[in-house]
């Protein structure tokens, strides 16, 4: 009899744990969104922050976050896909490959603050760029590199062997086979993973504190030359992102409505994560259907 009671108790406890986790997420999202909802006006999203007075927005920070994401992906995607191709298709079973695998493990478990400090040494000080978007993008590339390699490798390995064999049997070279047969077939998986990785980059802050910096110059959104210091597109200007902004207004903010600004910014970040997540699912399955002529 005791065993049966124990069995029932365990079931109840485990169910409670599952409900607790779901409840926590719902509570967390509800709290952040309800706190920040009233701040999500066009004015808040586009105007510049005010250092002393209340009423500032997060326009430049939002722009910086998006621009930094684009820059990072421009650098990291080719590298990640290249290395993923090597690991899935070429890597022989030897010491060098094992060492690469170890490197991937090390890189993906490095604390992001350590990546940020490495960025400070190499991309900020040694290059002489100072705190800049490009340094931030390079640091985020280091942070994101192992993840992208894993995503690509998994997606490539999931492509049926027969497709590859068919292509090779036609006398097509290995590289052509990879580029024009395997890679397209793996694309839905890669894109889903990349969108999820983008969500991570969008919310990252610790690696950016000492690379992209904690300030944003006054931006002139009509100036699009790449080397003017007030141009939003200049990759050599410092750029504070949304996530860094949340941290900054909480630890050294002077404005009376710091709490309000952080509420709004947190709501934007969470909404962005939701969008990235749902977008990844939806886009991945849409692309898969489109490419495999699936019916529903």
């Amino acid at each position: 009899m005791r065993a049966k009671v124990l069995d029932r108790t365990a079931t109840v406890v485990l169910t409670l744990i599952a409900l607790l986790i779901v409840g926590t997420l719902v509570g967390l999202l509800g709290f952040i969104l309800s706190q920040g909802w009233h701040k999500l006006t066009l004015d808040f999203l586009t105007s510049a922050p005010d250092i002393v007075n209340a009423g500032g927005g997060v326009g430049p920070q939002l722009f910086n976050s998006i621009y930094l994401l684009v820059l990072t992906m421009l650098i990291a995607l080719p590298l990640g896909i290249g290395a993923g191709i090597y690991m899935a298709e070429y890597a022989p079973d030897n010491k060098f490959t094992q060492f690469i695998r170890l490197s991937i493990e090390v890189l993906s478990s490095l604390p992001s603050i350590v990546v940020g400090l490495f960025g400070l040494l190499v991309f900020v000080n040694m290059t002489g760029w100072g705190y800049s978007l490009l340094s931030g993008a390079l640091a985020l590339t280091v942070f994101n590199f192992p993840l992208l390699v894993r995503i690509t490798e998994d997606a490539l390995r999931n492509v049926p062997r027969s497709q590859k064999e068919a292509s090779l049997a036609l006398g097509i070279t290995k590289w052509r086979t990879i580029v024009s047969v395997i890679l397209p077939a793996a694309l839905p998986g890669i894109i889903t993973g990349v969108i999820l990785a983008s969500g991570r980059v969008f919310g990252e802050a610790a690696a950016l504190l000492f690379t992209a910096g904690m300030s944003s110059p006054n931006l002139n959104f009509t100036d699009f030359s790449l080397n003017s210091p007030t141009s939003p597109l200049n990759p050599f200007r410092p750029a504070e992102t949304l996530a860094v902004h949340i941290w900054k207004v909480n630890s050294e903010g002077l404005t009376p409505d710091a709490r309000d600004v952080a509420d709004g910014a947190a709501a934007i970040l969470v909404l962005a994560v939701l969008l990235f997540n749902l977008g990844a699912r939806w886009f991945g399955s849409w692309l898969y259907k489109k490419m495999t002529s699936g019916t529903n």
Partner: protein
Amino acid sequence: MSRRSEGSTIASNRIIADHTPEVGERKSAIDRKLLTYNKRQFTENVTGRFIAMACAGLLVVVVLSITYFIASKGLSTFLINGVSLGEFLTGVKWDPEGEPAVYGVLPFILGSFLVTLLAALIAAPLGIGAAIFMTEIFPGFGKKVLKPVIELLVGIPSVVYGYVGLTLLVPFIREQFDVLGFSLLAGGLVLALMILPTITSVATDAIEAVPQDLRNASLALGATRWQTIWNVVLHSALPGCLTAVVLGMARAFGEALAVQMVIGNTTKLPGGLLDPISTLTSGITLNMGNTIQGTPYNNALWSMALLLLLMSFVFIMILRILGRKKLVNK
């Protein structure tokens, strides 16, 4: 390949069949194309392979240079500024601006370990419990509701966790216990929430990998579902579950901003759950920007970063050992 050359192939094949002695002399268009060396494709094949290999090699270069640069900066505290290693690691007084300056980072180290352990103690039972629920008890609800929820939790930026901790948890602790609120407890809870999804998803994979035969055998012997889970499933998934917890701890140990926002940042030895403390990451985050490069104070911060780096190597070693265990069990 055009229709015409296809026709000619068939024709040439017929010719070959008719006049067997002349095979070697009359190569068809296809034969020629297949047998001659295509320089463009060959170059492309080689460069493609080379580029892919260079990208993979870059991973190694990045890891080696991170180790080299952080180590060379971090060791200068001991090599250039002459702080003794023992004093640094075991000193309980951190006063880098005093006369004479004292660099004892034990409070930071202890803080990091305590907050990580606390987070793991809270998150491990919950995470593994959720994993069991998802695989053994209610797979339908688990796959449809719990799994997406867990994936969403992974995606929420750490700053947001820290901010919620700051606005909800810290005031709550302050009111409940009549203390400052910024505390080891707040840090542990925020980190627990952060590593819960990691633990859950890795543990789920480990439990799912347990062969169904084992469960069937146990149930056939008359064991209840819980007895089966406890004695059979968890037993064979143990290395995987430990891997999950260690992965979560590695993440907790290295987390910077979320922890810094809620633990209070006082550099004394932690006394209790409700005391404000400091961690290695919070010390670096707060002071790296305010100190001048090359000063002993700044170098001491780099040594703390080196400690973080070494700790993540230790975590990887533990993970590798656990991974090997898993193979042996199979």
